[in-house]
């Protein structure tokens, strides 16, 4: 059943190429159906027994082992939901091919978050790059594929580091079937030297993927050039893979190394936090504003991951899901704006609120969630993380981290007001407001944003595991 989360969308994605190219609507709704099925399967599969097949015996043991629970469960839900909403909300030329790629992406990313074996994890890690790369090539604006190659080379370098680290871990430890084992497993067996190199490999892969400053320069271009539904899913979920990696994979396996890297990660996270917010303040392209805001927000989760504080980690779990919800929502709504107005530049837009009030309302909610309005999901994550950071003794990082929160209000409102407020502009198309189906696509995201903001309890309590050396990790359910 859990394996179906991976197999079903990949099979459906490949099968979609059998559907005639012209059957665009069929393809779209088939895709929506599969994504929704994944959502249902995830709900039913939460906490079910793991599924495992023997794979390798030499040079180390590796199993095709998948499981669902804890943080992984919430991310898989988020993934299915955001794919579903993005496919319903937006239209794309060559729809059949696009939906097929989205389903492949859905399957590959599910694989990352259900994997219970490091090698399976690494395999899906690289696999999830391919649909994104193909979409960047096939739907490149002005047929410029430089962004696609940049994305691939940068992320494959990270993936390669991760793969080498996995191999090294397998050789040293004898087994890679270890994700979700209790904290500190293997801490004694791995020597300091091997441990450091293995951690470095993982960390490089995770930092590039998230991305964390200064490994972020591939991201704004990628987010700007990807078609809106794809960037919604990539920013919502793919960007969480690295943080999930730190929180779930390396924290229990390599606690000493995590601890040793704390200062470095705090510096990188803090710099990214402030840097991203400042750059977002001056961008003209709305998608780039959101891209840099992601750099800023994800820096905060990185701080939480290395804080070793249970409250901060509970906040990290909440914020991972929260950021997924509002960044998916933001990119979907920006896509809807671009579909109508044929631009997403702040300097070209204005006064849309008058003619498209529903669109304005939708963008408003997403923007408010993103800037951390109390009562919506972003705030719940932020306050828990920062409370935990302060409790962990990181007084100055906490104080510094409040600055980007103020800046977020400025850049997010700037985006909104340039789009929606001011006198209506004559030089942009006057298009109809959101259709009912487009509203319907946003409704689940809005409901989730409010629910998680008011009552983040279920996500926050999905499991924090304390380990030796004051390293804390997030649980993904018991291994069964």
């Amino acid at each position, binding site marked *: 059943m859990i394996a179906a989360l991976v197999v079903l969308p990949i099979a459906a994605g490949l099968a979609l190429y059998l559907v005639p190219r012209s059957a665009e609507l069929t393809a779209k709704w088939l895709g929506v159906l599969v994504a929704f099925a994944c959502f249902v399967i995830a709900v039913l599969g939460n906490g079910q027994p793991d599924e495992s097949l023997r794979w390798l*015996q030499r040079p180390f043991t590796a199993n095709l082992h998948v499981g669902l629970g804890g943080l992984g469960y919430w991310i898989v839900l988020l993934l299915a939901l955001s794919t579903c909403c993005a496919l319903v909300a937006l239209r794309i030329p060559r729809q059949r091919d696009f939906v097929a790629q989205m389903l492949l992406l859905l399957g590959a990313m599910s694989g990352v978050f259900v994997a219970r074996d490091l090698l399976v994890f690494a395999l899906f890690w690289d696999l999830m790059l391919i649909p994104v790369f193909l979409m960047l090539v096939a739907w490149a604006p002005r047929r410029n594929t430089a962004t696609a190659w940049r994305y691939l080379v940068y992320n494959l370098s990270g993936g390669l580091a991760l*793969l080498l680290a996995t191999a090294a871990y397998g050789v040293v430890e004898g087994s890679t079937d270890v994700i979700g084992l209790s904290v500190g497993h293997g801490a004694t067996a791995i020597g300091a030297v091997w441990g450091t190199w293995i951690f470095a490999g993982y960390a490089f892969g995770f930092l590039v993927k998230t991305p964390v400053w200064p490994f972020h320069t591939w991201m704004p271009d990628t987010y700007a050039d990807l078609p809106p539904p794809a960037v919604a899913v990539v920013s919502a979920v793919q960007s969480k893979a690295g943080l999930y990696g730190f929180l779930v994979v390396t924290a229990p396996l390599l606690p000493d190394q995590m601890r040793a890297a704390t200062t470095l990660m705090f510096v990188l996270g803090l710099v990214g936090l402030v840097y991203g917010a400042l*750059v977002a303040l001056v961008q003209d392209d709305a998608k780039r504003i959101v891209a840099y805001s992601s750099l800023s927000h994800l820096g905060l989760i990185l701080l939480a991951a290395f804080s070793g504080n249970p409250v901060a980690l509970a906040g990290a779990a909440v914020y991972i899901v929260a950021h997924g919800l509002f960044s998916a929502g933001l990119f979907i709504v920006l896509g809807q704006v671009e579909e109508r107005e044929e631009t997403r530049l702040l300097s070209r837009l204005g006064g849309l609120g008058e003619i498209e009030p529903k669109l304005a309302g939708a963008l408003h909610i997403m923007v408010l969630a993103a800037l951390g309005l109390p009562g919506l999901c972003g705030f719940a994550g932020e306050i828990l993380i920062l409370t935990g*950071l*302060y409790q962990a003794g990181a007084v100055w990082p906490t104080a510094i981290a*409040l600055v980007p929160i*103020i800046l977020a209000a400025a850049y997010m409102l700037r985006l909104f007001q340039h789009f929606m407020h001011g*006198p209506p502009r004559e030089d942009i198309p006057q298009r109809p407001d959101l259709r009912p189906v487009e509203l319907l696509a946003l409704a689940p995201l809005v409901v989730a944003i409010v629910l998680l903001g008011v009552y983040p309890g279920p996500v*926050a309590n999905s499991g924090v595991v304390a380990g030796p050396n004051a390293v804390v990790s997030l649980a993904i359910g018991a291994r069964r």
Partner: protein
Amino acid sequence: MSNDALVLLALWLLPLASAILIFAFGPMLRRSAGVIGSGAVLVPFALTWVLAASALGTGGLKVHLFDWIAGFSFGLWLDPLSLLWTLIITGVGGLIHVYAIGYMWSDRAIARFFAYMNFFVFAMLTLVLSDNFVGLLVGWGLVGLASYFLIGFWFFKPSAVAAAMKAFVINVVGDAGLMFAVFVLFAATGSTAYADVFAKAATLAPATVLLACIAIFIGCAAKSAQIPLHTWLPDAMEGPTPVSALIHAATMVTAGVYLVARCAPLWDVSPEARALVGTIGALTALVGAILGIAQWDIKRILAYSTMSQIGYMIMGVGVGAYQAGILHFFTHAFFKAQLFLAAGIVIHALHDEQDLRKMGGLGKKMPLAFWAMTIGTLAIIGFPPFSGFFSKDAVIYGALERGYPLLSLIGVVTAGITAYYMCRMLFVTFLGNNRGNVPDVDLGIPAREHSEPHFGESAPAWVMGAPVAILMVPSVVAGWVVFGGRWNALFASDFAPKPESALATVLPEWLVGVVVLAFVAWGVAAAYHRYGSFDATVSAVERLRAESQRMAQPLVRAFYFDDALEALFVRPARAVGSAFMRVVDPHVIDGVVRDVVWLAGWIGREVRALQTGLVRGYALVLALGAAAFLAYFALIGASR
């Protein structure tokens, strides 16, 4: 859950339900949205009275809602303090809602307006009813949001949009301060609930308490327009006048007063925090009053007077004279709402003209507005026996009693200035001849954009008149609650008894009151001499032009607070952001990345004779390598 608890939940959620309803069905509802919206505030007002008995009982009325994680529990708490605020929010708020039906009658977006107003009431109730800091913070943020919505209600006006943005961002600064307070208190006590935190207040390290108090007060300063975070309030007058009355006068801006009073156990153990907050409050009172002298826009005068009066309240609760500060909130809510609503009648009748210089002689044309404004002015300047007299004296004497004679003195001087600028407004607006037809240039008004007047049909006059008339009563009598010591007894359980300072024993309260009255008389006389006397009204046009042209620059620029914030924070942030975007990202970071790629390419060229010269070639090699690596392990697995 007890009946009382259900009633409390109902009165809290009713405005929210109404806001959602109106928002969803707005186009269908049109003006009936106003009736629904008003009902959704007045019914909670009635329900609050039902709960008064249990709120005044020991410990108040508590309702637990849910927990996020350990230490983050959420609930409602109705005690004397929150009861008072709830009554004002729903009572004065309800009247303003009714008034707004008339004010917004011909606005196309009247339904949206009432949805926002109801949402504000819900947010404000959340703020005062919460039993913990995080719930408070949620209310704190949401009132800021409602304020932002309503300041920018006419979002086609660029000035309104800019004002809304400024208000929101400055309020987020305050939110951040309050968040920091949560961190400090949670780290020290392991909880965010008031009860837990205050129970441990006396045992905390003084430095911790001071830090928490400063952080809390940053929140208060932003929300309650205390210097230097006050600059958003005058600009917030871009919103419709009922908004100014409800949010930017009677309720939201007093949230800081509420919070300092709520956190009395913290302030009680930190003398430094007391001195700091009292001083900021007194300075704000003074600065607001001075800036009030230099304004021509009737709403901006009222905005600066609000800032100044909240300065008094903050001074009161800051120095520990909690009952006095709260009393001033109580009386101020009535007379300031009344002043704004009366100003709204004037503005409405003049088709959105807000400049004093274009008014004059309106006393005969609009008797209700004139009398409302007169009573409001008498109340705010502290003329006995109007309500402001009791509360302002209580604050000034309270500061003296608590051992802050200097702050008390500032309060006395400010009272005189207040009398001057309020009477100036009153005289210039209502006395003499009407100047509506005098060209702008002759009055010294700089060129300005005229918004298009909307000559829609009007509501019956009583819709706007009745709330103003009703408010006149408490504007006069609200201060009388001090007689018999009932007011102080109401909060006896919340606040520690006051220590008498040596000065207070020498100077009796009546003497201080007389001194204040002397300053007030001086202010009224000066204003009368310049604007109210027969000579002044006859030569009003020349006098106003001369004054407009000769206004001192520091006053025109509002003591340069805006310029300073702009130069210190806004411009540097943009400059650094631009530098990162134009230089660091493309040249520094990507420069290194390119070097690494170049190095890889160079190694490739050296090692392999075969080179394609294309990046994609290297990427392909990399991909193939990874694939081969995987295939190798897969094959091993298969051969097992």
